[in-house]
């Protein structure tokens, strides 16, 4: 708590905005070229096939124009030549926090990661800049054959699995930023859960950017084999700088028949980070993929967690919240592709905009002609806290099979004076009352999070509501 207070004095309300001195062991010059891509691959001692994928992806990134939709002016303002594409800050990925360089360990201490690990997690990966500095998994899970590694170690230790699945869900030509990630990826998580194994407690990855003008490009691949289950949780923060950083991740999930993957994110980047992420899962027969996606920070987020319902009877859920404050644009949503019969999906999107912030819901639900008896439900609610803020909704439904059962609801609301007065009459200040309304609005999301995250999110939102009453 004193650490947080200290941090708040420095950077205002954003409590993770401090930075450490940069003690990198390897730091690339700014800018991107094929040479940079090859160098990253060489440095990691990768097999040739991975180098080839990277180079191909780089070529596609160069050729591919910027998206012409969304917040194009902000996208165009990204200067790819002023970003550092690789920064190694520790020689090794340690298994013991005591072996992690002190500055870095202190940062993760302040973020509460080792404490959370002891209390309620099955395993932890902590990534600092480009690579994981710490990694561990509970022994009993390892004995059951669960693989939980940072992606670089994953490629070294299990190249055959990675070769089989890498880019199988998000091809390198998917979009400009997925191509960029595929070219320069570093770090991220690799998880394989064997048949029938249920990982009861969540595993967590924490991503921290520390350096200025940093690009973080983690790559995550999760494969849940038949009848298995896992809950993966990720968090992320960065220092507040006046110059921009870029976070562009790719996440691929594969839920084999009967498996269940839940992927929860609380994204709290500082307001100078572009967060352009591609997340997608493939759900086989009777499997279930859930994205629980919270976007609180960043300058611009463009992220639409997707599920391809490939197998009969599979189910997808995307529950997301977005908070856009001053100078922020959260362009988020979900995409679901019903390719098989008897598949079901549910999208719940909640956004709050304040102090001129902008929230966009962009959603796509597609039902293919062959998919019979699909059920889909889309709900998007926006709460606008003042006149300067903005909320837009772009829901698209393309239903090519008449047996589909579709439900869609959308609402835009404002906090009413009577609601505030009611809560104030019960002894709550105007700010407390507003935080109660806002946290209530997010409740359908927070109740899906592990308790520790839910508490943190509520505190975060209460902090955002401070000073919002003029």
């Amino acid at each position, binding site marked *: 708590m004193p650490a947080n207070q200290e941090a708040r004095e420095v950077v205002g309300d954003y409590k993770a905005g401090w930075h450490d001195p940069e003690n990198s062991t390897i730091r690339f010059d700014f800018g991107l070229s094929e040479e940079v891509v090859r160098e990253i691959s060489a440095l990691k001692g990768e097999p040739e096939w991975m180098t080839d994928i990277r180079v191909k992806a780089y070529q596609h990134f160069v050729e591919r124009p910027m998206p012409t939709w969304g917040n194009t002016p902000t996208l165009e303002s990204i200067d790819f030549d002023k970003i550092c594409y690789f920064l190694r800050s520790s020689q090794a990925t340690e298994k013991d926090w005591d072996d992690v360089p002190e500055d870095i360990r202190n940062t993760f201490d302040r973020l509460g990661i080792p404490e959370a690990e002891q209390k309620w997690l099955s395993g932890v990966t902590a990534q600092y800049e480009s690579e994981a500095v710490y990694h561990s998994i509970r022994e009993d899970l390892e004995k059951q054959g669960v693989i939980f590694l940072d992606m670089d170690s994953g490629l070294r230790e299990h190249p055959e699995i990675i070769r089989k699945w890498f880019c199988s869900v998000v091809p390198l030509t998917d979009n400009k930023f997925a191509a960029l990630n595929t070219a320069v990826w570093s770090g991220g998580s690799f998880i394989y859960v064997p048949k029938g194994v249920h990982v009861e407690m969540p595993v967590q990855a924490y991503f921290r950017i520390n350096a200025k003008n940093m690009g973080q490009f983690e790559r995550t691949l999760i494969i849940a084999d038949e009848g298995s289950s896992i809950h993966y949780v990720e968090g992320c923060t960065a220092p507040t700088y006046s110059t921009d950083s870029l976070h562009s991740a790719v996440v691929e999930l594969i839920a084999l028949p009967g498996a269940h993957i839940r992927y929860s994110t609380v994204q709290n980047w500082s307001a100078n980070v572009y967060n352009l992420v591609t997340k997608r899962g493939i759900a086989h027969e009777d499997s279930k993929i859930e994205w629980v996606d919270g976007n609180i920070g960043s300058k611009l987020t463009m992220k639409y967690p997707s599920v391809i319902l490939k197998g009969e009877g599979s189910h997808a859920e995307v529950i997301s919240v977005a908070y856009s404050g001053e100078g922020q644009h959260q362009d988020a949503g979900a995409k679901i592709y019903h390719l098989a019969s008897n598949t079901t999906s549910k999208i719940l999107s909640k956004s709050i905009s304040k102090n001129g912030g902008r929230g966009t819901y962009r959603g796509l639900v597609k039902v293919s002609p062959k998919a019979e008896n699909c059920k889909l439900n889309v709900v998007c609610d926006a709460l606008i806290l003042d006149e300067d803020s903005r909320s837009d909704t772009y829901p698209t439904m393309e239903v090519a099979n008449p047996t589909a059962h579709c439900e869609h609801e959308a609402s835009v609301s404002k906090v009413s004076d009577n609601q505030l007065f009611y809560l104030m009459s019960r002894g709550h200040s*105007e700010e407390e*009352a507003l935080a109660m309304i806002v946290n*209530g*609005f997010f*409740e359908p999301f927070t109740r899906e999070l592990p308790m520790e995250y839910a508490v943190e999110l509520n505190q975060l939102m209460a902090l955002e509501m401070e000073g919002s009453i003029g």
Partner: protein
Amino acid sequence: MGSGESDIEALLEIRNLHAGIDDTQILKGIDLSIAPGEIHAIMGRNGSGKTTAANIIMGHPDFEVEEGDVLLSGENLLDLEPWERAREGVFLSFQYPQAVPGLQVGNFLRKSVASIRGEEAAKGADFRRELNEAMDTLDIPRNFLSRYVNDGFSGGEKKRFEILQLQLLRPKLAILDETDSGLDIDGIKTVAAGVNAAIRGTESAALIITHYSRILEHVRPDKVHVLIDGRIVATGGPELATELEENGYDWIEGRVGAESVA
């Protein structure tokens, strides 16, 4: 501001209150004094200014006081924010309680008790016991605690929830704004029992705002005031409520008219 010792005795003292909303004057000079332990009723038709009076005492930001004072135990309430008034001991049971989706009843009650009676009062087994007892007397089932504040509540549930809050927050002054409206006779009895439990035999006081005399049969008020067009035109004992019920507001308007002519 002091006009002497009489302020100190009164729990609530309203003096020459002129107030309104959007440049429309609604209260045109109200004087009212309630002693500790007393229950008063204000009766009047729609539009007579009853709800405005309740909102002014609680501090609704939309209403404007043009003139006059509202004192709680001699202290001026009008300078305080609504939550400060609540912490000083003012409670309003709303005519239209507001829904707050996502805010759980149990959580909200605990936070409100902590804010008004202090953190200690909202902790541990004692609070749990107090909460359970209050819910039992109001016939509120336990699963109520995990529902969202007033969200999807029936009319009766909303009113009982207001009284539950009244019991737990233990105010010095409870204002009930048409808490009886829309309730059946059992509902009215339950609400009345709650009010009696919270006020009778304590140093607290209540101001019951209502159209009808029904609730007043179960909560015998010490005084009944009749509000017409922003003024208190008659004050009497509980029998005034009965007379009003039998003869209607026209009767009292006629009486007042006759008196002012005389």
